């Protein structure tokens, strides 16, 4: 499903990604781990289409050249990024925002838009996945949300937009253990045969709940080691020292 070859990314003349090679099949969950500053977040941003990077290499997503698409077209193609720091948009209602996104994607795919009433029903149902209170719907996007609420909101959005590739960027950061469980349960409920996930995390903790098929260690902009889920446990013990 996702085929990354020789991916390089530069920002302000500084090289962050230095030749990433990675392939992820449909239905798989891959964890990307690594020390701070190794390029984990850059990888997620580059895949989602952040324009501040100078990028080379190739990324094929279901046969499409992902790098040639604008961020909104990548969203329509089925790419979803759960942000490490979800952005606040004052005055724009959560539900309104999400329905606009949902229908924009549908429209670009040539599908019929969903009306407000049906959408509300859909939202109410999916909200349960992350145990979100319906009152969040009428609040402004992420405004005044706690760290945990923001992360839950990201997973809720993912549940609505139903991507084929979900990239979770440090979704565990800033979560207490109860919130972590809720978020992980939500993610697990969304695992599907036709959906791949890239779970980016600094700690092994999240991977106790979202068990990956593959684990990759990213250091200095390259994948330096890959293995099964046991690699994460090993890293937790030994730390990243050997890769720095």
């Amino acid at each position, binding site marked *: 499903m996702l085929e990354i070859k020789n991916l390089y990314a530069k920002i302000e003349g500084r090289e962050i990604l230095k030749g990433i090679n990675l392939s992820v099949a449909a239905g798989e969950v891959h964890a990307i781990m690594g020390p701070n500053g190794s390029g984990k977040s850059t990888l997620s941003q580059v895949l*989602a289409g952040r324009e501040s990077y100078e990028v080379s290499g190739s990324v094929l997503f279901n046969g499409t050249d992902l790098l040639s698409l604008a961020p909104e077209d990548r969203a329509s193609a089925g790419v979803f990024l759960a942000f490490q720091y979800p952005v606040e948009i004052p005055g724009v209602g959560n539900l309104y925002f999400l329905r606009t996104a949902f229908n*924009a994607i549908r429209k670009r795919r040539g599908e019929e838009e969903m009306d407000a009433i049906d959408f509300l029903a859909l939202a109410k149902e999916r909200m349960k996945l992350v145990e979100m209170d319906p009152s969040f719907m009428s609040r402004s996007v992420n405004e005044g949300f706690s760290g945990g609420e923001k992360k839950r909101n990201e997973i809720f959005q993912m549940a609505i937009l139903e991507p084929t590739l979900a990239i979770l960027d440090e979704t565990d950061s800033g979560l207490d253990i109860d919130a972590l469980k809720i978020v992980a349960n939500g993610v697990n409920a969304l695992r599907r045969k036709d959906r791949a996930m890239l779970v980016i995390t600094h700690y092994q903790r999240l991977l106790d709940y979202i068990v990956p098929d593959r684990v990759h260690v990213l250091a200095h902009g390259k994948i330096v080691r890959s293995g099964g889920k046991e690699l994460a446990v090993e890293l937790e013990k030994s730390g990243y020292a050997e890769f720095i």
Partner: protein
Amino acid sequence: MSTVQAEVSELVGREYKYGFVTDLEMDTAPRGLSEDVVRLISSKKNEPEWLLAWRLKAYRHWLTMSEPQWQNVKFPPIDYQDIIYYAAPKPKKALNSLDEVDPEMRAMFNKLGISLAEQERLSGVAVDAVVDSVSVATTFKDKLAKVGVIFCSFSEAVKTHPELIQKYLGSVVPYTDNRHATLNSAVFSDGSFCFIPKGVRCPMELSTYFRINAADTGQFERTLIVAEEGATVSYLEGCTAPMRDKNQLHAAVVELIALEGASIKYSTVQNWYPGDAQGRGGIFNFVTKRGKCAGANSKISWTQVETGSAITWKYPSVILQGDNSVGEFYSVALTANYQQADTGTKMIHIGKNTKSTIISKGISAGHGQNTYRGLVKIGKGASGARNYTQCDSLLLGSQCGAHTFPYMEVKNKTAQVEHEASTSKIDEEQLFYCRQRGIKAEDAVSMIVNGFCREVFKELPMEFAVEAQKLLSVSLEGCVG
């Protein structure tokens, strides 16, 4: 900010939609300002002697005044002798009904999206249409008259209700108030008059639509709204002008009077021609708007969406004289290209337990300069007075500016005055977040800006709110480059 700039500038080229000129046969005064011109205007309108005397007092006073210098806007000196002070479309004959409105004129209003006949039949909003210096049509007059509401052009009111005009004209904005208001007092040509008698809730929205059409003319209209004890009215005002490369002066005066228990809601969507992308042309919008809560428990609420004009200079204010009276000011001001706005309000608390709320949203883009200037004055006798002020600025791009000048004078210890201010910009992060979710950049910018203005838009009457949102999106197109 690269993407924001690129996205917004990609939308360049959307022309000012209302910039056309209609060929109307005009009756104009000679260029320039003099006592003779003031007399000419008065005689064209067959005015009574007392009104001419008032105009002349204003004119003579104007000669002694100098241009206000304190505002944060820049423009070359205005040559008052190069302006035409009176321009009226020549009526073919006296009008008995809307069907008799000049077809050219009717076509012009249709093009502006204001169908005088349609308005009358369908939307239930009474309209007074003012072109250049005169009112050309007022709809729904008869229906309003049945409940005692007077809604007509100012000139007509001078003839039919001189006692009301004489009583209230200049009672809130005296002819000596400021140079632009004084000029208006000397040469005002028309405008709207509304009178809501005691206990009457006006059965429909009243609105005036102002259109500058002729070249080199100034528009000087006057609006006077009086709500008697317990009366309620909601009034809307819209304005547009053709695209011309010379600046045109618009110096209007609006006076509102609310007696005991009365409530006046005044909403403006101002879309005068803003000038071109290089800052050539556009309207100088120098307007004095003030309301007086004369009676106890009265309320005056101003809502304005200011997207047009090369320069906007206006401070819709409320004098809170009656005990427990309430003043509100909700404003969205957008400056794009080389537009400048210095706008805000004055809340003058005189009565006990008076309350005021100020919500101001300034949006600057391109080289636009946006200033909020507001005064909250709590007098000695205003025990228990309260004010809440919130001023937010949103910047799009790096060459625009936002400025906030809040003034406070508190002379009563029991008063509570709160002020909050913020400045933010649409950043790459917000835009990327929206785009990642599938919303394209231009829709995202418009969504973010509308979200920023939501607190003000929700104060607008329904139809106006939709109009304002559309207007904002259009005005934003091509504003950062």
